[in-house]
């Protein structure tokens, strides 16, 4: 596979490390959320057959975490974003 890195251009997916569903960005706050919320966050997945937003890390490159939108049936990559931008846009801060 080839991931079109927003900064570096097309790179072989072998340079990257895969984490999983980009919903993992939505970590609850440990001081307010409890076990149930963390359990759902960490363990349950939509696991769609189709477009899937997922986290990849450019370990053999610039160390960016990316949000890649990829079709899990065809492997077509629809969108690649910097995870930090997506996180900020989603309201994450400190």
């Amino acid at each position, binding site marked *: *596979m*080839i991931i079109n890195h927003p900064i570096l251009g097309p790179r072989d997916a072998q340079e990257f*490390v895969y*984490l999983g569903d980009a919903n*993992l*960005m939505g*970590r*609850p*706050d*440990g*001081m307010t*959320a*409890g*076990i149930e919320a*963390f*359990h759902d966050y*960490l363990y349950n997945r939509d696991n769609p057959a189709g477009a899937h937003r997922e*986290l990849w*890390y450019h*370990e053999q490159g610039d*160390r*960016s*975490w990316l949000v890649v939108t990829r079709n899990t049936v*065809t*492997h*077509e*990559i629809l969108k690649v974003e910097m*995870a*930090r931008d997506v*996180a*900020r846009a989603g309201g*994450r*801060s*400190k």
Partner: protein
Amino acid sequence: MSQSNRISGGQIDRKTSLQFTFDGRSYVGHAGDTLASALLANGVRLMGRSFKYHRPRGPLSSGSEEPNALVHLRTGARQEPNTRATVAELFDGLHATSQNAWPSLKFDAMSINDKLNSFLTAGFYYKTFMWPAAFWEKVYEPIIRRAAGLGALTKDEDPDEYDKGFIHCDLLIIGAGPAGLMAALMAGRAGARVVLADEDFRMGGRLNAETFEVGGVAGADWASAVVAELAATPNVRLMNRTTIVGAFDHGIYSAVERVSDHLSVPAAGKPRQTLWRIYSKRAILAGGATERPIAFENNDRPGVMLAGALRAYANRWGVAVGDRVAMFTNNDDGLRTARDLLAKGVDVAAVIDSRQGGDLLPGIRHLQGAQVIDSSGRLGLKSVTVRLADGKTETISCTALGVSGGWNPNVNITSHHRSRPEWRDDIAAFVPGTGGPAGLSSAGAASGAMSTHGALATGQAQALAALADLGFAAKADELPRAEDTPIVISPLWFVHEGKGRAWIDQQNDVTVKDVKLAHQENFIAVEHLKRYTTLGMATDQGKTGNVLGIAIMAELTGQSIPATGTTIYRPPYTPVAMGALAGRSRGKDFKPFRLTPSHQWAAEQGAIFVEVGNWLRTQWVPKAGETTWRQSVDREVLATRRSIGICDVTTLGKIDIQGTDAGAFLDKVYANTFSTLAVGKCRYGLMLREDGIVFDDGTTARMGTHEFVMTTTTANAVTVFRHLEYCRQVLWPDMDVQIISTTEAWAQFSVAGPNARSLLQKIVDQDISDAAFPYMGAGNITIGGLRGRLFRISFSGELAYEIAVPTRYGDAMIRKLMAAGAEFDAIVYGTEALGVMRIEKGHVAGGELNGQSTALNMGLGKMVSKKKDSIGMVLSQREGMNRDEGYRLVGVRPVDPTGSISAGSHFMEIGAPVDLASDGGWLTSKVYSPHLGCDIALGYLKAGDQKIGRKMRAVNFLTKTDTLVEIVSPHFFDPQGERLRG
């Protein structure tokens, strides 16, 4: 017998004669021959035996689809099993032997199976060999396994090397027949970066095997001229002997280039083969088509061959397979073979044409409405029996029979992404379906355009389409003139007459009867048919047999062929040597070595090294007179605790963390608190995964208000860094924190023992007295002006420091330390002594940090602060992880100090039955402590914290030991930690 079957013409170099042997007999062929063509030229038709029935076999084809003519090529460690003689390029001194036959190819004892064929039908083994139960492994299976396989490996290491390479291009063209050449010409002239790959050593595809003219010249000559132009085009890369074997995502193709297979041994420094990873923006499949046979009784005899192969041997290689040949065809292509052979002066006995009507071939006995119903000849074809249109039978003597059942486009690569081929009635064949690899189109016979003109036209059209996509300007040129004969076929899959066997998949001995049995037993789904009969599972992946099998099943069920379906071709297109896929990652080069800064010094001392991940670390350093590793390790431990031991700890992960939020960041990633750590101090940190399990541990020092240095375990250096990047980019993107891995930037040494300070003070420029540099102190220092870092931390339990200098000074540093330490008898200790001392101190490491243990399990539960949010804090509170009866870290020692215990032993109560219910846990790590004079171990024991002082058993069934042990605190040595504060 000297090339008795060689006739005129062809693209062989008759001036270059090549000697070769097959089964010990010497023959002569010519440059440009394959092993098969050369053997056929010498009148040798018998080249192999089939898998199940050990039927005598000769080549069916002239290409990579060959199911029968498989041989052992070369000798010794280079012996290569299952090599298709039809694509093995002849070289001088080639040595081939037959396989799957004993004692000889002509008299094969296992051909008894052929006589027993009525018992050995498809799937017979599923229905028997069940009683008595123990007989399967002991009796039946060994017999079956003795018969398994075709060729043999020698079990010697492959002496050849393999390379890997990467190519980027605009357009990859797969196949250099008329379609591929035309496409390459268009794209090359337009300026696109083109790769044109062909599995053959000679480009031109079928043009080399046919008598067609293209643009008024012989097709093969036209191909040569185009190849010459392309070779002179700098943006075109020609790759012959290169098979595109797999289509992967996003335009990536794998290719195997047989760099040296046409030589007796690779030239010096050259690989045998190269695996290319080709990154293409567009690709065109122009891989041609494969002819398929018609099944009839005994259609597998040497000499029975695809009609197109017969033609190829005559036209390309100047070989008449038989002195008298016949044809059996259901389409016009078979007639073409008869014409070509006749023109070459070969005696054509008859053309048996299953179709009625149409023009009769002039000058040939053309039997319309006739079918071949049987053949004779034990080791090679002698005659065929024909059912004539009038119902009479006739035996026609012939030594070769060309069979043409029509042509199947080579759709294989298009289905590597699981796209299913589509059926076209007009050519009675499957063509590429939709949903194939993105960016891949097909042209020529591979796309169903079966004429030369069709190939040229679709090659040009697909190239133009690809060029337009890629943004290259190109116009259609006038196409060279070429034949445009339509496909005229009336499908005939198998001859219905006869009670014997008619082969579909020749290598695996799948016959029409097997398909009928599968149908009878309701193995009707195509996948069931394949799996039950093994149709298409041989080394040719069913290139000649699959469609036949499906068509026969369709006829039996009354369904159409497309409704019956097709199995999907899987990569690779043709089988690929494991060596090519592995490349140079083998032997010692399997993974790179990471060497510590003191490696050279340690090697000079005769150190023993051990693999730790990709690192090589000093395991121990034997001294003269030491004969066992224990002597060395005990000495290193005692010397360290007595005076000074030095250990290279560079392998520990080191991460610089800076920024105004660095302290707050560490509070998030560590279970304990770091924001309160004073500048110039270190703290032990415990890092959890989000699921509350311990991820890693290490010490982190605060070098400045906004500057920390983290250490990780060796094993987790990479994953911890990745995790920190995740936390700062994804979870808390606005934190002002920057990180960089400095694992390879700093050479770091542990200097441990009562005299550690005395030694270091000799070389460190600053005051490091206990007052100036107390326990858990950290700071920047200089060593004779060289910048360094010093941490007063201890894994050994001694007064200890870790001193770091830039890596390039690491070798100088170990030499300086040893020189300065000479007066203290300083020694270097390795990982074994390190392990002894950490267990004596009860520190957790690999065996305890197993990814399954909580802080509570390790006795570190109180370190998880609930006053702040940190990774893993919430889920570490789940009930199942906080049970009183859960595992707790304990120390273990044998009650009898001479007793032996082993890691991996399980705890059992004394007197309790040795069973699962009384399994109390296990010993995680064990060493011999020279201080305590006995084995000591750490372990996870259920409710272990409540069992200190109790006696239990450590049971190891694998070594059959059962030792009485005492459960103790894991802190065996200096439990108050007085030494490290000294």
